[in-house]
């Protein structure tokens, strides 16, 4: 088998593996390339097809989209993943291969019954990016010295998601379900998990929410709710402005401004180490 023949054979193998599982294998068995295989074993090429869709749906639903599986059910996420990979042959790197999953979901006709799912998938991808990004540098943290707002910046590895859905409540809900499953070891008791999930989801109130995602240490992920009135300020911080510049740009309305809420929110961000000092 020369190099060109090998490439043709391997492309054929990959074509079969990626093909829609509903297509009968017989359609491939009449192709010329099939003669490279031992006739006694060639029918087992089906094992690779089955394995491909089982693998991609299991791996992604249990890793990057683990929280989405907790919240919406793993079968629901797996079903969309299979549809997605059928239409989007994957590049070499696994994480890269699901980058377009949210936009794929947005185009699905039946997503209108659950239009909040794509934003939650974006959140899962953002969390995965942040977890694998550079750790926060401890020498850039604030000590007890007075803080000049012109030296206060957001961490470099941070993501800000704006959503018209209650993304923060959904995140908290998914985390609670995940903890419930882990604590009770209820993987085998789907009914109990389902009941817990429905109770949690029923408590989510419909509103738009924004969320800030970063690491406070190499092993601690933080997801912080950004109140709507501070969204513009956060956007400016994300663009690289310092806190003083971001406040100036935002031009808060002084008469109605809730100083106490702002102070508490900034304190929370400081406590969770969202800020660094300028070098």
């Amino acid at each position, binding site marked *: 088998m020369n190099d060109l023949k090998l490439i043709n054979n391997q492309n054929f193998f990959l074509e079969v593996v990626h093909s829609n599982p509903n297509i009968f294998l017989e359609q491939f068995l009449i192709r010329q390339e099939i003669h490279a295989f031992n006739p006694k074993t060639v029918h087992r090429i089906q094992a690779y097809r089955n394995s491909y869709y089982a693998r991609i749906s299991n791996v992604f639903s249990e890793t990057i989209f683990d929280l989405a599986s907790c919240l919406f059910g793993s079968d629901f996420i797996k079903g969309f993943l299979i549809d997605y990979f059928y239409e989007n042959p994957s590049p070499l790197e696994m994480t890269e291969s699901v980058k377009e999953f949210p936009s794929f979901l947005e185009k699905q006709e039946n997503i209108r019954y659950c239009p909040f799912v794509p934003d939650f998938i974006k959140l899962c991808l953002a969390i995965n990016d942040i977890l*694998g990004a550079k750790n926060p540098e401890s020498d850039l943290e604030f000590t007890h010295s007075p803080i000049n707002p012109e030296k206060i910046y957001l961490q470099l590895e941070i993501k800000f998601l704006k959503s018209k859905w209650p993304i923060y409540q959904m995140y908290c809900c998914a985390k609670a379900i995940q903890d419930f499953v882990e604590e009770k070891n209820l993987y085998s008791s789907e009914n109990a998990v389902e009941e817990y999930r429905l109770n949690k989801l029923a408590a989510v109130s419909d509103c738009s929410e924004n969320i800030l995602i970063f690491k406070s240490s190499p092993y601690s992920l933080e997801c912080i709710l950004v109140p709507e009135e501070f969204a513009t300020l956060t956007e400016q911080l994300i663009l690289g402005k310092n806190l003083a510049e971001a406040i100036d740009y935002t031009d808060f309305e002084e008469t109605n401004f809730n100083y106490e809420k702002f102070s508490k929110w900034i304190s929370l961000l400081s406590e969770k180490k969202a800020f660094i000092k300028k070098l």
Partner: protein
Amino acid sequence: MTQLSSPFLNSGNLNQNINLSHGVFGAGLRACHYEQWHNLDTLPVLEIIADNYMFLKGGPALYHLARIKERTTVVVHGVGLNIASGYDLDRNYCYALKDFCNFINPTVISDHLCFSASPTHNSFDLLPIPFTNETLNLVSEKINIVQDIIQKQLTLENISSYVSYQENSYTEIEFLNELCKRTGCGILLDINNIFVSAFNHGYDPWQEIRKVTASYVKQYHIAGHSKIEDYLFDTHDKFVCEEVWNLMSWALKNIGNRPAIIERDDAHVKFEDLIFEINYGNNLK
């Protein structure tokens, strides 16, 4: 096919702690077991899946790995080298692998004798290749490039396969021996894969394992499998069966002691089950 069952698991006291610190058996490091490994006094050799870590720049996975690598011997195993693809080698992958190995200093660096992807399609699987002189030349050239980049020996694993090629002029072990002779690479001998492929393609696993040149073997894998229709499937979700333990025992006596990794990839594998199999392996007579 006899499998080690739960009653057998509970009959001894092999599932509490690592009882032979000098044993060669270890396990794959999985995220769900970080805390349990941290809590053990004695760690066995642990296998790190390179692809799960080598593109990370920070975060909990690297944090746990850094703690663990200070406490035990680690071996690195990759799944994305795609060494037998007819297309060019992904050199960026090789350089990332080199940087990662410089960080964790493994005793063995391995991947699989297979192809897995083209520039546009990834199977996320280990797909078999024809064992011919042409593929021998192709894979030899690529191993030389990889070893030049990583500046260390590359070790290749025999895979479980379900289909075979008409043009095969070597068995898998003969092919691996020849690659080692030509390039100085090593063999990761997967005992379960020998058993599975032998069953699937109708040859004798004992005859095949006896062909391996002992000095080329740098590491072992051992795992469970499942029977599906007319073939065995490498599922990594069960205890190792007795026939495979017998092959393993033969390998330890006739090839020699090497790091031997028990592969369990099912999502909810119990830590005690892993410890049990490590201890079982270390107590093999």
